[in-house]
């Protein structure tokens, strides 16, 4: 009895609810499609149906995966862009920049074809590659020089690592005057007498490789000796970082007793506004950064930038070979010296570039 009453009413309900839920579902699907259609109008202009071209392209095609240093990322990305623009658009090149260490990890697993690096491969990483049967060739790309600067009015012309540690190390936290750093500098054997003037520091932002490299090359050694290897930081924490290199130049040229550091290219461009200091690493005396001293390695505050290429992959992949050829050929100057648009890194002198090319040919 109850059943016979239920079924007509119940069915009615079901039907109506079905209609409702279908409408709801339809609405959702409609929305997705509308959004998709909006998007697809964007894509039309962009994707020149690369899939269809693939079949026709007799030249080179394939995919190249690059990962590694974020410092080198713009150089390789620029070279890849130029390669796609001028040589072949059928080679899909992806460039990522999670960091040198992460890059080698992927490289030694065979997941990437090229690894960008802002230092040479470590022994442990090389062992990793060997264990996985990954053979590679190391190619020097450029130098990343760091210029230490002050105002032209400042009498100081040369600083050693001890001076810089006294002025910029963690023990200098709160120092607002050059003279305050004298005691530590004396302890570390300085030959400079710091002026009794305000210490106005303009430094790169913490996110930049220039910031990290400066700490690593200049401050870390002395910091480890004085504070132990486990110290939280090897740089004073009261520095306001500037993301924009031009602002750093402005800051340094804006005060008569300023101090700062920036990528070499920027300092060289503004040689009239700032005084680039010579740096003494305690071994080879005071050396001013120039393209030559950076290129030959005698200027201490610089680091080499590399790419590592999987040679096994290169033996079978013509696209990879053409890309690396182009990287150190037509694309080289543009991608290295104008990696960021207006500025970039120090290109290799001819003999070192020739050496890199020879290393690539002899892989």
């Amino acid at each position: 009895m109850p059943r016979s009453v239920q079924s007509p009413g119940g069915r009615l309900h079901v039907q109506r609810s079905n209609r409702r839920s279908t409408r709801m579902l339809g609405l959702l699907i409609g929305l997705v499609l509308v959004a998709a259609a909006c998007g697809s109008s964007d894509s039309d202009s962009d994707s020149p149906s690369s899939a269809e071209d693939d079949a026709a392209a007799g030249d080179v095609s394939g995919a190249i995966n690059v990962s590694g240093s974020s410092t080198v990322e713009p150089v390789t990305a620029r070279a890849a862009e130029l390669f796609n623009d001028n040589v072949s658009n059928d080679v899909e090149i992806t460039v990522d920049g999670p960091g040198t260490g992460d890059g080698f990890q992927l490289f030694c697993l065979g997941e990437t074809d090229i690894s960008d690096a802002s230092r040479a491969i470590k022994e442990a990483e090389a062992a990793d590659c060997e264990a996985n049967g990954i053979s590679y060739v190391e190619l020097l790309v450029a130098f990343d020089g760091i210029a230490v600067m002050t105002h032209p009015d400042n009498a100081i012309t040369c600083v050693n690592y001890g001076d810089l540690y006294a002025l910029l190390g963690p023990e200098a936290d709160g120092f607002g005057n050059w003279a305050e750093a004298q005691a530590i500098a004396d302890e570390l054997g300085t030959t400079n007498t710091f002026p009794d003037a305000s210490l106005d520091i303009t430094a790169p932002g913490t996110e930049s490789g220039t910031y990290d490299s400066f700490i690593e090359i200049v401050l870390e050694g002395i910091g480890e000796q004085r504070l132990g290897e486990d110290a939280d930081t090897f740089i004073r924490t009261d520095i306001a970082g500037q993301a924009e290199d031009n602002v750093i130049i402005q800051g340094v040229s804006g005060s008569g007793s300023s101090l700062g550091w920036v990528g070499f290219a920027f300092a060289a461009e503004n040689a009239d506004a700032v005084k680039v200091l010579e740096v003494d690493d305690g071994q080879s005396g005071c050396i001013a950064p120039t393209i030559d001293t950076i290129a030959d390695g005698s200027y201490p505050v610089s680091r080499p930038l590399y790419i590592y290429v999987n040679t096994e992959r290169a033996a079978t992949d013509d696209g990879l070979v053409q890309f690396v050829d182009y990287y150190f050929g037509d694309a080289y100057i543009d991608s290295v010296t104008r990696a960021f648009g207006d500025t970039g890194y120090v290109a290799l002198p001819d003999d070192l570039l020739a050496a890199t090319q020879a290393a690539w040919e002899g892989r």
Partner: protein
Amino acid sequence: MALGTLGDRRTKDRVAREIMNRKADPTGALFQVAVLFALLLALAILVLLLQDVVRGSWPVLSERPGDFLSAELRTRADETGVFQPLRGTFWIGVFVVVLAFPIGIGAAIYLEEYATDNRFSRFVDLNIRNLAGVPSVVYGILGFTIFVRFADGFFPGSVGDHAGKTTAAAGVTLAVLVLPIVIITSSEAIRAVPRELRDGAFGMGATKSQAIRSQILPYAAPGILTGTLLSLTRALGEAAPLILVGAVTGKLGPNTGFLELEQLGEKFTALPITIANFAGRPGEDWEQVTSAAIVVLLVMVLMANAVAILLRNRYEKKRR
């Protein structure tokens, strides 16, 4: 009786006193000013943020809006665009809608309508609530260890290099990230359905599933929609998990179209990642490009919110 009238008079007096005194209530007035100030401050910060971003983006969005939306990532600020990150973020949204919404709403229906109140269901409920509070980076690690490896070879073309770091892996990771939020908001919406409605449906002789489909879900729809679409906007804005799943920053190779399914098995990038990457590059023109990318993401999120509001209004009207 006499006592009653006396009581009534007292109440009346008290009410009268309350009404008379309202004008001279300094603490109340102060409170009102304080909350108004809180509202204005919140609004001011939002307006400031918006106008800063919009003004910063103006040179890019006024000069080359179409180009900016359709161009790939480039190393030159005046050539770069957000086509690829926009595409990635869109597909992540699709994954959330397709995976997290039905699964989440389904789980909520089970928890509210079928599960009996025992130790196990309470334990599940507690865990879902805790999961909603887990930092998104943790989901990124989960996504990396499970979905990146799972997706290896799952989609055509994803075998081999960089295998699992795909749009699909990112989409599934973010769908899982918002799943607890979808379950919680849907549960709450279902719980708010009046008891009479349920009883009425059963009284008409409806079965449980009929009652759920015909009465409970339509009534709860506005609440469910608001909650789920808000969780979608959360997914669209996440960056941290995508770093771990492997969003690309420098140059993204595959040039698939916006809607080609093939890209689900390819490397990806997304708007939040691109914004962070643009922001780190030097020069004023990169600042403008960063602002423009932020505007694109904001418009996308606001669109999702607008859809949520529209749908909610629609279903609320129906409910009456």
